[in-house]
């Protein structure tokens, strides 16, 4: 019997200390049947990619409220590629201006979710776009 589970890393890079949103999304993913690795606050891009590698995740969800998304997200993406983890889907949540969101999507982010996005929408998007392996 094959029991493949979708595994998601929910991480909070950067310095802001609010992880309420990240926890809400983590629980929503769990309730949708996914295995969620939650790593806590203040993660560096190095730590995030290390965890993504060891945990063999399908999805990395980054929650960024500090405004530092334009530096943090590209760092995570670059490192993922350097480790050969190009097939991992990256989604970003937080307060991100539309022009930045467009830029991040061009860099390879699958989706950017603003504050107040219904968790169901995030879950549905993730389930719909996660790659078969």
């Amino acid at each position, binding site marked *: 019997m094959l029991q493949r589970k979708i595994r998601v890393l929910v991480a909070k890079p950067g310095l802001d200390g609010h992880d309420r949103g990240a926890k809400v999304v983590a*629980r929503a993913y769990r*309730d949708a049947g996914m295995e*969620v690795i939650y790593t806590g606050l203040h993660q560096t891009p190095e730590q995030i990619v290390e965890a993504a590698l060891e945990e063999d995740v399908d999805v990395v969800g980054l929650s960024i409220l500090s405004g530092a998304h334009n530096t943090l997200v590209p760092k995570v993406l670059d490192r993922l590629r350097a480790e050969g983890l190009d097939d991992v889907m990256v989604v970003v949540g937080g307060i991100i201006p539309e022009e930045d969101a467009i830029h991040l999507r061009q860099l390879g982010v699958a989706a950017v979710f603003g504050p107040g996005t219904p968790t169901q929408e995030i879950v549905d998007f993730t389930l719909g776009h996660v790659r078969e392996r």
Partner: protein
Amino acid sequence: MTELAQAIRSGDRRALARAISLVESNSPLAPALLADLWPFTASARVIGLTGAPGVGKSTLVDRLARRYAEQGQRVGVLAIDPSSPFSGGALLGDRIRMDDPDPRVFIRSLATRGHLGGVNRALGGAIALMAGAGYGLVLVETVGAGQSEVEIMSHADLTVVVLMPGVGDDVQANKAGILEIGDLFVVNKADLPGSDLTVRQIRSMLGLLDKRLAQVPITKTVATEGVGIDALIQALDGFGRSPEELERQAARRRQQADRRLREALAELAVEEIRAGAGDDRWQEAITRIAARETDPERAARALLRPITKEA
């Protein structure tokens, strides 16, 4: 040797991560992979840590892993948390307490996926993969349910029971049968009041249970501060030195091998018998058991019969 097994042997960490997923999901690729690596797994030491929720298992594992890595050891960590019985999903949070700056440390979170006993069905496979990848020490943190985690004994060379100061903890631990599985005890959070009392209580409880248990080491730690970690490591490394201990270790590995054989046999037997019976007979047996027209044992014997006759 399969390509994936070769990659794992050569130190490819991504291959190891992928392989653990394959074993967890019961992939058809898993048996050959595990067979390839099995010969290389003998020398790895497996230490299990168990104890009630929040006693500080993850924090301790983090300290131990770092200290052993500093000594040049490669350390694999398997941290188990429960799956939700409703959704089948899981929130795996042990990593919050684990900082992982050292490339010699490989941390993997596992969900129980419906398995009871505080571990995960694929735990044996995951340990073998880490051992085969050259991690000479594998630390396993069980689910912090505080009870029925005895199954860790069938995987670990050494089981560490973690407790913390507090009223009645000793009694709780004893009720859960957790005292008897400890090769070593840690009273963590020794910065909180009452740790010496807890040590004395454990000591007297152990003395009651078994004369041999009266000698079991008990160490105090403050995991968050790194206090007592050296003494704990000394106690851990002091294990398996005396001839009696070596003998017990060997006996335990034989018991574990027996257990693995039974598990493999049970799994294979069900598969074979099911395939041999065909889906129609299988479904019919299920229907008749559910309708109480037959009982599970009799139905199982009926499915077994053609096989045992051939032999």
